[in-house]
C-alpha cells in the first residue's frame, strides 16, 4: 500500500501529457516560424541584393560606357553599408572586370557564371552564400553585368537566436504547465483518486455502505462515481438478502434439529422405559418359574410330570436371553445419554477381569488368552467396561467352535494414535457385510449358531464415537476377527 505514489500516478500522467503537448506544440510552432523566417530572410536578402544591383547598374552606366573603373569602384564601395555583401564585381559585356569590391582584403576571387539565356537577373546558392548576377542595361542596350555575393550566415545566427528564445519560452511554458497541472489534478485526477481510495476502503473493510462523493461536474467521472455508488448499493442489497435467507435457513435448521432431538429423546426415553419396565415382570416370571421348578409335582401323573419338568427347564434360558436383551438395550440407551466421567483406567486389568468372569461361566472351555500389560486409557470407566465386555464377549462367543481358541487384547501405534485391538481366531465375518457391523439389530450370524442381541457392537460404536475415537474391524470368514478402536 503506497497511497502517495498511487495518488501521484494519474496526476503525473496528466502532467507528462501536459508537458508533452506543450513541448510538441511549441517546438512545431518554433520550427515553422524558424523555417518561415529563414525563407523570408533569404527572400529579403535576395530582394535587397536585387535593389542594390539595380542601383549599382544605374550608377555605373557611365563608368561602363567610358571605361572608368575608378568611378565604378566608388559606386561599388557604397556596398560598405550592406554588411551581408562580401564581394561584388562589374563585368563589361566582354566579361572583363571593370571594378570589384571586397569587404575583406583576402576575399578569394569567385567565378561569375554568365546569366542563363536572356535572364536579366539570376541567383546562385554557393554554400552559405548567395550570388546574384544582374544585367546592366542603358538606353535599351546591355552594357555590362554586376555580380554581388552575399553571406547568409546571419540566417544561422538568427536560427541560433531563435532556438535559444524557443528553449527559454519552452522552459517558461513547462513551468506554467506544471503549475496548471495542479488545477488539472483538482478537476480530473482528484475525483478519480478519491474514487480509487473509496474503492480500496470498501475492498479492505468490506463496508458496502460507504458512498463516493459525487463531483460537481457532470462528466464521465461523475458517471463513473454514480455507477460505482449504484454498484455498491446493489451489493449491499444483495448482501442483505443473502444474510436474511441465511438467517432463515439457520432458523429452519435449528427448528428441525430441535424437533429431531425432541423426537429422538422421546424415542430413547420410550425404549429406556420399555426396557426398564420389562425387567419387573421378567423378574416375577423368573421367580415364578423357580418356584414352579422346585414345587412338588409328585401328585401328577408321571408322564405328565416329565413333560412339565421339560417345559419348566426351558424357561430360565429364555428368561436369561430376555434379561440380556434388556441389559443391552439399557446400555445402548445409557451410552448415548450418560455424562462422561473421564479418568485413567487400567484396561489390562479390566480385560483380565472380564475374561475371568467369562471363563467362570464356562469352566469347560480352554481358551488361549494374551493380554498386553499396562494398557491404560483416559475414559469413562463404566462405558469402557461395556466396550471391552462386548468385544471380548464376542471373541469368547465366536471362538466357541474353534479347536484351539485364541484371544488377544493389546495396543499398537499408528502414527500419533494409539490403537487398541481385540483379536480372535474364531468364526469371523464376511467382509462384504462390514458396513452393517455397527448398526443396531444387525446380525451377521444366525441366532441358532451364535446367541446374541445385535445391539452390542452398535453400543460399542456409540461409546467410542462419544469418546472422540473411531472403531473398525477386519476379518475373513472362519479366519477370526480383529477389532480396532481409538480413543481421543
Amino acid at each position: 500500500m503506497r497511497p502517495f505514489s498511487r495518488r501521484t500516478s494519474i496526476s503525473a500522467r496528466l502532467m507528462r501529457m501536459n508537458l508533452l503537448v506543450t513541448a510538441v506544440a511549441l517546438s512545431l510552432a518554433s520550427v515553422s516560424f524558424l523555417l518561415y523566417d529563414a525563407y523570408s530572410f533569404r527572400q529579403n536578402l535576395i530582394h535587397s541584393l536585387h535593389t542594390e544591383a539595380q542601383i549599382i547598374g544605374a550608377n555605373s552606366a557611365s563608368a561602363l560606357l567610358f571605361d572608368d573603373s575608378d568611378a565604378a569602384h566608388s559606386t561599388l564601395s557604397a556596398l560598405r553599408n550592406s554588411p551581408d555583401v562580401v564581394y561584388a564585381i562589374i563585368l563589361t559585356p566582354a566579361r572583363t572586370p571593370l571594378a570589384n569590391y571586397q569587404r575583406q582584403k583576402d576575399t578569394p576571387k569567385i567565378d561569375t557564371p554568365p546569366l542563363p539565356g536572356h535572364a536579366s537577373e539570376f541567383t546562385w546558392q554557393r554554400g552559405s552564400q548567395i550570388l546574384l548576377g544582374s544585367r546592366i542595361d542603358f538606353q535599351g542596350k546591355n552594357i555590362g553585368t554586376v555580380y554581388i555575393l552575399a553571406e547568409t550566415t546571419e540566417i544561422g545566427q538568427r536560427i541560433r537566436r531563435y532556438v535559444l528564445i524557443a528553449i527559454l519560452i519552452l522552459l517558461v511554458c513547462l513551468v506554467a504547465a506544471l503549475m496548471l497541472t495542479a488545477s488539472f489534478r483538482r478537476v480530473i485526477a482528484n475525483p478519480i483518486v478519491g474514487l480509487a481510495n473509496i474503492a480500496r476502503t470498501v475492498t479492505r473493510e468490506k463496508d458496502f455502505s460507504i458512498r463516493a462523493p459525487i463531483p460537481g461536474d457532470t462528466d464521465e467521472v461523475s458517471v463513473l462515481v454514480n455507477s460505482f455508488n449504484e454498484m455498491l448499493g446493489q451489493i449491499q442489497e444483495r448482501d442483505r438478502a443473502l444474510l436474511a435467507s441465511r438467517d432463515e435457513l439457520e432458523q429452519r435448521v435449528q427448528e428441525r434439529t430441535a424437533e429431531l432431538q425432541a423426537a429422538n429423546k422421546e424415542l430413547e426415553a420410550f425404549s429406556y422405559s420399555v426396557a426398564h419396565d420389562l425387567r419387573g415382570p421378567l423378574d416375577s416370571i423368573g421367580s415364578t418359574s423357580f418356584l414352579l421348578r422346585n414345587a412338588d409335582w409328585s401328585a401328577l401323573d408321571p408322564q405328565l410330570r416329565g413333560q412339565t419338568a421339560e417345559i419348566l427347564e426351558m424357561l430360565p434360558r429364555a428368561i436369561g436371553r430376555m434379561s440380556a436383551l434388556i441389559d443391552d438395550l439399557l446400555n445402548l440407551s445409557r451410552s448415548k445419554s450418560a455424562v462422561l466421567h473421564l479418568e485413567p483406567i487400567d484396561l489390562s486389568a479390566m480385560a483380565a477381569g472380564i475374561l475371568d468372569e467369562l471363563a467362570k461361566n464356562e469352566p469347560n472351555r480352554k481358551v488361549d488368552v494374551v493380554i498386553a500389560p499396562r494398557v491404560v486409557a483416559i475414559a469413562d470407566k463404566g462405558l469402557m467396561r461395556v466396550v471391552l465386555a462386548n468385544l471380548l464377549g464376542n471373541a469368547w462367543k465366536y471362538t466357541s467352535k474353534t479347536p484351539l481358541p485364541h484371544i488377544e487384547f493389546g495396543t499398537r501405534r499408528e502414527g500419533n494414535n494409539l490403537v487398541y485391538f481385540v483379536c480372535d481366531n474364531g468364526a469371523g465375518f464376511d467382509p462384504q457385510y462390514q458396513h452393517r457391523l455397527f448398526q443396531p439389530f444387525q446380525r451377521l450370524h444366525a441366532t441358532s449358531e451364535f446367541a446374541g442381541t445385535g445391539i452390542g457392537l452398535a453400543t460399542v460404536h456409540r461409546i467410542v464415537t462419544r469418546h472422540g475415537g473411531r472403531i473398525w474391524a477386519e476379518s475373513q470368514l472362519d479366519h477370526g476377527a480383529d477389532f480396532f478402536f481409538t480413543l481421543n
Partner: protein
Amino acid sequence: MKFALAALLVLILGVEVPGAGLLLAQAPRESDVEAAYLFNFAKFMHAQPHSPDFFTIGVMGKNPFGATLEQITAHEQMDGRAMRVMPVAGADDARNCDMIFVSDSEAPRLEKDLEMLQAANVLTVSNVPGFLDRGGMIQFLIVSSRVRFSVNLGAVNRSKITLSSELLKVAVSVSGLPPGEVKP
C-alpha cells in the same frame, strides 16, 4: 583595322561581333576610343534638337576617325532621331549640328567659333590642348595611356545644354563649377 574596330565595339558598346575575342588583348587606337566616346556623350546630354529628324555629329576640320565614327553611329537612334555624321566646313555650318568635334587642324581660330557654337547650343568636343580654356566644353586627355576627358561646365552652363551628372562623374576634371559645388 576592321578587327580592331570590332574589338572596340565589343569593349565599349557591348555589340557582339564574331571573332572579336581574338583581338581583345590588342589596345584600341586612340581615335577609335574617341569616336566611341563621342557617341556616348550624346547619351548623357540634353539640348534643344537642331533638327526633328537627325541627331547630327559634325566634324570640323580634318577627320581623324576615318570611317569609324560613321560605322559606330550607323543605324543608331537618339531620342527617336537618326544619328548622322557630317563634315563641317566652318562655324556657320556647325550651328546646325547637335555636337561638334573640333579637329586640331582648326586650332588657330577657335575662340570666336566656340563662342558662336556655345550660343547655338552645340556641344563642342576636341582633343586640342587648352580647348577648355579657350571656351570649349569637353576635351579628350590621355591619362595613364587611357583616353579620358575633362568638362568645362561653365561653358556648358552658359549654353542651354545640360550634361548628366553621370557623365560628370566619370570626367577627369570639371571646371567652371558654380561656387560650393564639388565634382563627385
